[in-house]
């Protein structure tokens, strides 16, 4: 009889603690989630860019989700150079064909994959980009060739709405 009573009491306390803990968890979540991107930020996911005025060999930089996006109209030499590289030589092997669907246009996030600085155009050992912060060299396809960055510069989701307009996101 006495033993049974203890058991029930233990069960009661355990249940109280368990239910209480669920409540604490449920209360903490909104306080954490409020720091995630809000509805208005999520809604601004795409931007359209008019590229009719960009000549071969020129790059424009546009802002998308608060980050720079490089849109480069590559010259034939640059394309040839990018496509001639053997995959074995690359730290992060990716074919240029996969990175630039339309070979003339390279659209990528202008953010160094090392620690997030913006690389400089037409600099570095590979005629592509060079990040001044910690010395990462990227080639004409935005692939990492030398330096501390681990991966190639990211290609965002984009599409040509028409011949002159690119929609990023």
């Amino acid at each position, binding site marked *: 009889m006495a033993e049974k009573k203890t058991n029930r009491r233990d069960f009661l306390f355990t249940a109280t603690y368990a239910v209480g803990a669920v409540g604490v968890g449920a209360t903490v979540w909104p*306080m954490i989630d*409020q720091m995630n991107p*809000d509805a208005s930020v999520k809604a601004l996911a795409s931007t359209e860019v008019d590229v009719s005025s960009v000549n071969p060999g020129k790059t424009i930089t546009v802002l998308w989700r608060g980050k720079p996006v490089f849109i480069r109209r590559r010259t034939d030499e640059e394309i040839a150079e990018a496509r001639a590289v053997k995959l074995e030589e690359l730290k992060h092997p990716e074919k240029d064909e996969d990175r630039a669907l339309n070979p003339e246009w390279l659209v990528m996030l202008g953010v160094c994959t090392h620690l997030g600085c913006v690389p400089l155009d037409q600099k570095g050992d590979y005629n592509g980009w060079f990040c001044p912060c910690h010395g990462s060299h990227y080639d004409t396809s935005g692939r990492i060739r030398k330096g501390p960055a681990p991966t190639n510069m990211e290609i965002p989701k984009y599409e040509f709405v028409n011949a002159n307009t690119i929609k990023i996101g």
Partner: protein
Amino acid sequence: MSDHEYNPKSKFGKWFNDRLPLLTLANHLTDYPTPKNLNYWWTFGGILTFCLITQIVTGLVLAMHYIAHADMAFDSVEHIMRDVNYGWLIRYIHANGASMFFLAVYIHIFRSLFYGSYKAPREIIWIIGIIIYLLMMAAAFMGYVLPWGQMSFWGATVITNLFSAIPLVGEGIVTWLWGGYSVDNPTLTRFFTLHYLIPFLILGLVILHIWALHVPGNNNPIGIDVKKPSKDTVPFHPYIVIKDGFALLMFMIVFAFFVFYTPNILGHADNYIEADPLVTPAHIVPEWYLLPFYAILRSVPDKLLGVVAMLSAIFILAALPWLDTSKIRSAVFRPLYRQFYWILVADVLVLGYVGAMPAEGLYLLIARIATAYYFLHFLVILPVLGFKEKTLPIPLSITEPILGGSPNLATAKNKESLNR
């Protein structure tokens, strides 16, 4: 601080505790001997701690999204309400939390008044409490300004203008408070800064409040000194913790009802209209918890004297331990005081009611009588009562009358009804 030496069991515990006696503190808090006859009115201390923490946490979160600028404040509040994840929930908790905070603090204060908790040796606890209450009003007022609605703006204008009642330097002080020639962006940004600061001051004072409480220990419904630890006390944990927890949950049900089902009922519709310096709302009212003082302010037909009356109504409370001359703490054994106590409660409720009504005609007359009675209670009734009143005999200990050992039947009966 501690009544007894505490020795941690583990070696590391001892090593740590010798350098920073946190374990001693934790032990003191769990073992703290509490009178075992505390009723539910005593749970509001814990509830208030919960309110303060809730306000600080939700406030910090809101500050991450709020923009303290006259052009953007209203928009940023709407942004919180619409777009921020759970923003509506957090803001409604914060806004209704202020009301719940005041509800709890009024119960806490009136409990203290009934059971004489402000009397020796607890005067310092009481005075710290009054300072906390003043800071709460300041924080609540400035917080109400932040959404930059019509009531925010005009409330700020009216309240800051109170300072212009001060002779000679009044106008200068008001201009200084505003940082301009009217309530405007500089006023908003400084109010935001202070609104952010004050809760942490309150938190510090709450620690002192509890510290000062733990020196003499809790008062209790029969108001006698309790030997501790003894048969009359229980350790704070688990007895009081679970009881406070139960009361807190009941409180949270009421709180949740407001937040989820009538989140705007305690606010004022005009505050959903963006601040407009050209148009005053037809009917300016402060939040409900400030209404009694607002009624006192308006009941005096002179600008300076009105402000003086309003401030005195608050500061008079600080002198209460000396205004009340009775040696008996608890109203249970003071039959006359008990009646005056309830008249005072009614008086304050009446003041709150007329504070919400237009200051004219009958309302004004009622406000004046109620104001006069408020001061009469503290300045005349309480001091005289201490000498004149025939009090009931008090029991020797908490356990005694419960066990039926009291020689005085009336006392035992009184106590029983208290314990229920």
